[in-house]
C-alpha cells in the first residue's frame, strides 16, 4: 500500500495522566451519567419521542478510550451512543436539541437518539443497525493507511453484535492489511433481553485471535485501566501494529431501552443492585481521586453540581429551541457536487 500524503495529527504523548487528566476523565463520566438521567426524564415526561438506549453504568468504557484519542481519531458508535458522543467531545446543548428533534441538534433533528453524533470531533455516527458500523470503522482505518494519515479508528459495539458475520469479514481484512483500528466490544452481559452466554459460543476474544489479532479482556468499570490500555494500543496502531480487539466487561443500569421496565424475567434486581453499589465506575474513581488527594469531596460535589446545572440549562435551551423548518424535509438527501469537478479535464 502506498502512502500518498503524510499528514501528522497532533498526538498526545504517552506519559502518565496528571491531575487535569484525572479530573477531566471524572468530569466526562459524570457528564455522561447526568446526560442520561436528563434524557431519561425527558422521555418519561413525554417530551422526547422515539427509541432510546441509556449508557449509564458503562461510562468508564467510552471515557477511558476516548480520552486516549485526539479529535483527529475517529470512532463509530452504536444504538447506545450518547456516551460515546459525550466522551468524544460533544456539547450538551446540541445533543439535547438532537434528542428533541430541534434544528440546532447535531444532525438538525434528522438523526435523533439512535443516530446522534458530533461529527466535528471525529464521531462517525451512532448506528441503529447492530453491527452496522463495523465496515465503516474498518474502512476509516483503511483510508488512514492508504492516505498516510496517522489517526486511529475505534469501533464500539456490544457483545450481541459479535454474532454478526460482518465483524468476521472486516477483522479478516483488518488483520491481513494491518489496519489502525481497535475493535472495542462493550460486554454488558446482555444482548437486548438475552444473556450473553445464550448468544455467544466460546470466548469472544478467541474470535479475534483466530485472525491473529491481539485481544484483551479487561474490567470496563475501571477508567484508568481502560485508559492505560487504550493509550498503548492507540500508540501501537499509529506505529502500524494494529488492529487490536478489546473486550470491556461492563454493565448497563437501565433496561435495554427506556421502555424496558419489567425485566426481572431476564435479570434480577439483586444483580443490578450489586453492580450499582459495588462496581460503579464513577463512585469507584471518585473514591480513588479523594484517596490520592487529587480532589476533595467538596470539590467533587461542586463539580457534580456544576454539571447538573449545565444539563438543566441545556435541557431548557433545547426545549425552547425551534424545530426545523418544514422545507428541510427533502434537504440533505443527496450531497452536492461542485459542477466544475464534473468537467472533463478538470
Amino acid at each position: 500500500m502506498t502512502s500518498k500524503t503524510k499528514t501528522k495529527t497532533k498526538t498526545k504523548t504517552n506519559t502518565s495522566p496528571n491531575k487535569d487528566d484525572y479530573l477531566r476523565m471524572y468530569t466526562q463520566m459524570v457528564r455522561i451519567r447526568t446526560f442520561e438521567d436528563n434524557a431519561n426524564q425527558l422521555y418519561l415526561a413525554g417530551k422526547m419521542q422515539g427509541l432510546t438506549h441509556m449508557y449509564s453504568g458503562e461510562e468508564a468504557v467510552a471515557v477511558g478510550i476516548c480520552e486516549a484519542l485526539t479529535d483527529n481519531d475517529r470512532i463509530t458508535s452504536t444504538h447506545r451512543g450518547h456516551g460515546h458522543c459525550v466522551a468524544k467531545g460533544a456539547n450538551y446543548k446540541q445533543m439535547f436539541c438532537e434528542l428533541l428533534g430541534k434544528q440546532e441538534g447535531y444532525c438538525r433533528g434528522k438523526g435523533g437518539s439512535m443516530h446522534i453524533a458530533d461529527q466535528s470531533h471525529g464521531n462517525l455516527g451512532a448506528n441503529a443497525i447492530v453491527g452496522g458500523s463495523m465496515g465503516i470503522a474498518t474502512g476509516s482505518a483503511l483510508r488512514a493507511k492508504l492516505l498516510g494519515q496517522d489517526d486511529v479508528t475505534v469501533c464500539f459495539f456490544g457483545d450481541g453484535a459479535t454474532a454478526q458475520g460482518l465483524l468476521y469479514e472486516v477483522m479478516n481484512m483488518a488483520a491481513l492489511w494491518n489496519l489502525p483500528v481497535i475493535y472495542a466490544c462493550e460486554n454488558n452481559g446482555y444482548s437486548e433481553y438475552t444473556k450473553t452466554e445464550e448468544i455467544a459460543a466460546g470466548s469472544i476474544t478467541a474470535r479475534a485471535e483466530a485472525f491473529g489479532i491481539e485481544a484483551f479482556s479487561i474490567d470496563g468499570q475501571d477508567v484508568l485501566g481502560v485508559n492505560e490500555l487504550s493509550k498503548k494500543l492507540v500508540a501501537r496502531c499509529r506505529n502500524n501494529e494494529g488492529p487490536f480487539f478489546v473486550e470491556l466487561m461492563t454493565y448497563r443500569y437501565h433496561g435495554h431501552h427506556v421502555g424496558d421496565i419489567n425485566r426481572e424475567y431476564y435479570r434480577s434486581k439483586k444483580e443490578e443492585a450489586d453492580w450499582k453499589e459495588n462496581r460503579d465506575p464513577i463512585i469507584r474513581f471518585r473514591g480513588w481521586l479523594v484517596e490520592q488527594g487529587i480532589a476533595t469531596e467538596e470539590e467533587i460535589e461542586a463539580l457534580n453540581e456544576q454539571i447538573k446545572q449545565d444539563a438543566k440549562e441545556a435541557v431548557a435551551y433545547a426545549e425552547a429551541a425551534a424545530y426545523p423548518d418544514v422545507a428541510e424535509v427533502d434537504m440533505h438527501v443527496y450531497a452536492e457536487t461542485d459542477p466544475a469537478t464534473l468537467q472533463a479535464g478538470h
Partner: protein
Amino acid sequence: MREITLSQAVNEALAEEMRRDPTTFILGEDVAEAGTPFKVLSGLVEEFGTERVIDTPISEPGFVGLAVGAALTGARPIVDLMFGDFIYLVMDQLCNQAAKQQYMSGGKLSVPMVLRTNLGATRRSGAQHSQSLQVLVAHIPGLKVALPSSAYEAKGLMKTAIRDNNPVVIIEDKLMYQDKAPVPEEEYLIPFGEANIKREGSDITLIGTSSMVQVAEEAARILEAEGISAEVIDPRTIVPLDEDTLLKSVRKTSRAIVIDEGHQNYGITGEIASRLNEKAFYYLDAPVLRMGAMDVPVPFSPVLEDLTVPTPERVAENARRLCAGEMIHAA
C-alpha cells in the same frame, strides 16, 4: 363478534398453525421469553417450548439462511425479523436462495417458509427503523408478499402464509399492533390474490395497502361529506395481485389513486398504477395517481416525519381535484 388486537390475531394464527403442524417452528431474536419487543409472540414459548420458539443471536443472514435450509428439507419455519429495515441484511438468503430454489430445480425443490416483519414510519424511530420495504421483496419472482390491514386480515393471511409452499414475506404495520378489530372464534383463512372491497363507491377508486387502507377509508369519509363517492380496496397481497378486482372497480369509477407507505419512486404504487393504465386505459377519465411516502430517508424530528407519509387529507384533496377534472401529476 369479539374484538382482538392485531398483535393477538397474529399470535393466535401462529399458535393454531403450530398446533396443527408439528413441522412449524419460530426463529428470531428475543422471540421466546421476551416475545419480541412488540410482545406479539408472548406466551408461545410456554406452549411450544424453546425447541420450537427459538431465540437466535443477532445474526439475521445466518438465521434466515437456516430457515431456507430447514424449509428445503421438510420443516416449515416462521422467521421473525424484528424490524422491516433488516430486510436489507438478509437479501441474499431471501432473494438469491429462498426465492429461486423452486425455479432452479425445475419444480423439484420448494421453500415453504414465512418471513414476518413490519413496516411504517411516524414512530420517531429514525431512518434505520422506519422503512416500508415491501417493494424490494415484491420485485423478486418466487416470493409472495402479504400486507395485512387489520387484525382480521393479519390472522387469515398469516395462516395462509404458513400453509403456502412458497417463501412468503408478511409485513405488518408497527403502528397497528394495538388496533382492535372483530375476529371470529372459528377458523378461517384468507386466500392470497383476493382483494377486499372495503367500501363501495362510484366516483373514484382508492387502493391502499396496509395502514394506508385506513387512510383511504378516512379520505372516503371526508369525500362522502362532500358528495363524492369513493370505493376503497385493499389488495391484501401485492404478490399475487388481484388485478381483476382492481380493474373492475376502475372501469366502474373511471378514476383511481393508489396509496402505499413505501417510497414513491419506483414503488408499489407505480406498479399498480401502470397496470391500471395499461389495462383500463379507455375507461379512465384521468391518469391513475400514485401516493407513496416522500422520497427521503425518514427523518427523526416529529415535525418533519409527519410530512413524509400520505394522510387522509392529502388523499381527499387529490381525489377532489381528480373528480373535478383537474389534470394532476404524482409529485
